[in-house]
Structures are given as structure tokens and as C-alpha cells.
């Protein structure tokens, strides 16, 4: 349960710390699901930004959650813009080579953990953002629309298509196995 920043119980530092404990894994997961380079550093940036305005947040715990993911979404947009301006040069890694064929053992190990996140990452940007904000961040339809600066109707359409795509990806995965 997220604390209300305007509550009179405890200190402001305690309320901020409670918000960090509750939300930081979700912020990290949201940023990871979108392939941010250094998601931990980006998560810290998000909470430093939240701390600057924490005392003036309205709307109680839901307001804190919405504002936190608004900041995280803004950082994500900044990251993608920076990446588009300056393509990142990375050294050659044999494991990242698309011509590399995984062994049966590696394939089985991949499926033990992370397969659901891998399926999520295969969605298009907008669908992935809607699904991750709904599932990982735990935002409502209206809050997601507010964070993404879109209408509720377009978010509803995106989430339905995103879920159908996920279902199809999963069916294909099962057939491949």
C-alpha cells in the first residue's frame, strides 16, 4: 500500500522511503522490459526526480504511482530519442549474433525463466508500453492514458491488440517447442 505524501503520520522521508520500496522493483521491471541500457541507474534517476516533487503530489498513493511512472515513461522516451540520435557501438558478442543457433540445453534453460518477459519484448512499442504499464506498473486504464498522453479509447484498443499479440506469440512458442 503506497503512502499518501500529504499524510500527517511519519516524516516525509519515511513516506518517500516507503514509496521507493513499493515501486522501485516495478519501475526497474518497466524499464528493463523496454531495453534501457542501465535500468538501475535510470530507476535511481526516476526516484530522484520524484523526491524533488514528492511533498506536492496530490491524489494520495495512486497519485504517487501515476507520477512515478510518468517520470519513468519520460526517461524511457528520452532514452529512445538519445539512442536514435547516437547509435550505440557495441563489441561483437558471439552469443548476440543472429546467425547463432542455440543448443537444446540453452533453449530449455531460457524457458525456465524470462520467457514471459521475452514475449512481452516482442510486442510493438506502443502495445508493449500499454501492457507493461497495466501489468507491471499496475496503473488503471485512465492512469495509463494520462502517462502516455493518449485518449482512453486508444489505450483500450492498444491493450486489446497487445493481449491478442501476446496470445499469438505464446501459441507459436508452444508449437515451436
Amino acid at each position: 500500500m503506497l503512502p499518501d505524501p500529504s499524510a500527517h503520520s511519519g516524516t516525509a522521508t519515511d513516506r518517500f522511503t516507503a514509496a521507493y520500496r513499493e515501486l522501485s522493483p516495478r519501475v526497474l521491471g518497466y524499464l528493463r522490459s523496454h531495453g534501457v541500457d542501465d535500468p538501475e541507474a535510470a530507476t535511481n534517476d526516476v526516484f530522484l526526480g520524484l523526491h524533488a516533487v514528492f511533498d506536492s503530489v496530490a491524489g494520495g498513493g495512486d497519485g504517487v504511482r501515476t507520477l512515478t511512472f510518468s517520470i519513468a515513461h519520460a526517461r524511457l522516451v528520452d532514452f529512445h530519442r538519445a539512442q536514435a540520435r547516437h547509435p550505440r557501438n557495441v563489441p561483437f558478442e558471439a552469443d548476440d549474433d543472429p546467425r547463432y543457433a542455440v543448443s537444446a540445453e540453452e533453449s530449455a534453460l531460457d524457458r525456465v525463466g524470462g520467457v514471459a518477459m521475452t514475449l512481452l519484448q516482442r510486442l510493438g512499442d506502443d502495445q508493449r508500453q500499454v501492457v507493461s504499464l497495466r501489468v507491471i506498473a499496475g496503473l488503471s486504464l485512465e492512469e495509463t492514458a494520462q502517462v502516455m498522453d493518449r485518449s482512453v479509447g486508444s489505450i483500450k484498443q492498444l491493450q486489446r491488440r497487445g493481449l491478442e499479440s501476446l496470445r499469438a506469440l505464446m501459441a507459436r512458442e508452444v508449437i515451436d517447442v
Partner: protein
Amino acid sequence: MSDPIELLLIESELEHDAVLRDLLGEIEHEAIAVRPMPSAELSALMNPRSAAARRPRRRSFAGRSAIITGVVVIGALGLGATAAAASPEARSVIGAGVAAIAHLFQPALVAPEPAPTPRHPASGTDVPSTDPSAGASDGPSADPTADATGEPSPSADATAGANNHSGSSGHSGDSKSEDSHGNSTGNQSGHGNGTGQGNGGPAPTP
């Protein structure tokens, strides 16, 4: 099952899809499995007491005493230099004291040689340390005929210039030359110059 996932499925009219429900639950579980470590800056914001404890302390007593000692030594050196410029008598006393203090505080900078000769002008004890060549040229300074043969070598001059006392000691035997030194003893370098003139050319005294 968390509420947001159920709500999402209902809104999308997929509430009967159990496989999708499990998949969304798995996505949530995998996403929040890792708890991030707060950075130092964020930790300081969430824990102001420990951040205050980690602030750098004031300079230690040993550090402050070293600074005070340094200031005292520099002040003493400055005072000695001023007094030496003002009074030849004070120069010899304070100069010796400052040299002793500097020697104590900078043992590594002083070459391990015998102690330097004392800075007393026209001291009789300096006579044995005189360069023989300077002494030889001193004599001819009174005799104009020796000028042609007794021209001092540059090395002898340099030695006399470097060692101020050698010149005065060279003149110690001649009372007229000593008088001229008394006139020109504005500072220590004046001694060296006087010696050079005595060595190189005709006697400077009237």
C-alpha cells in the same frame, strides 16, 4: 492473482482466457523479481542521519599544529630577512638562528656536508679557508707590477664571489682594504663585490 490483470482481461473481454491470465501473471512476477539498489545520492535522501555521519570532519589537531608551525617558521624567516636588511648586527644573530631553525625543519634538503662557515664579516678565523689564488692576487693588488702577471682566473673570482667570507679574509691583513670593506658593507654581497674589485684591478681605496 492481482487485480490489475483481472481488470485488464475484463476490459479486453478476455477474462475467460486462463492461459493469457497465467502469462500476464508470469510477466508481472518476472518484472518485479529484482529489487534495485539505491544509489548513494538516493540513499542519502532516504537516510539523512547516516549521510550526515559520513560528512568529512574538521581538520585534525595534528594537521592544524603543522600549519601553525609552518606559519611560525615562515614568519621567523621573514623577520630574519627584514632585520638583516635593516641592521648588519642583527643580521648575523638572527641569520644564524633562522639557519639553525631551517636546518632543523628541513633535514632532507641539507646536503650531508660539514656545517657551513659562520657568517661573521672580517673574522680572523676565516683566513685558513681562503683560496690560495685569491690570497696571491690580493698581494699584487697593492703592487701594480703584478697586475699583468697576477690577473685572477675566472674560477678564482667565482670562488671568491660564492664564498663571501673568503674576500674579507683576504683583506684582513690590510688595514686600508678593511676600511674600504667597512664602507661597502651594505650587505653580504657587497663583500663579494669588493673582493672582486680588489682581485681584478687597482686598489679601490684612495
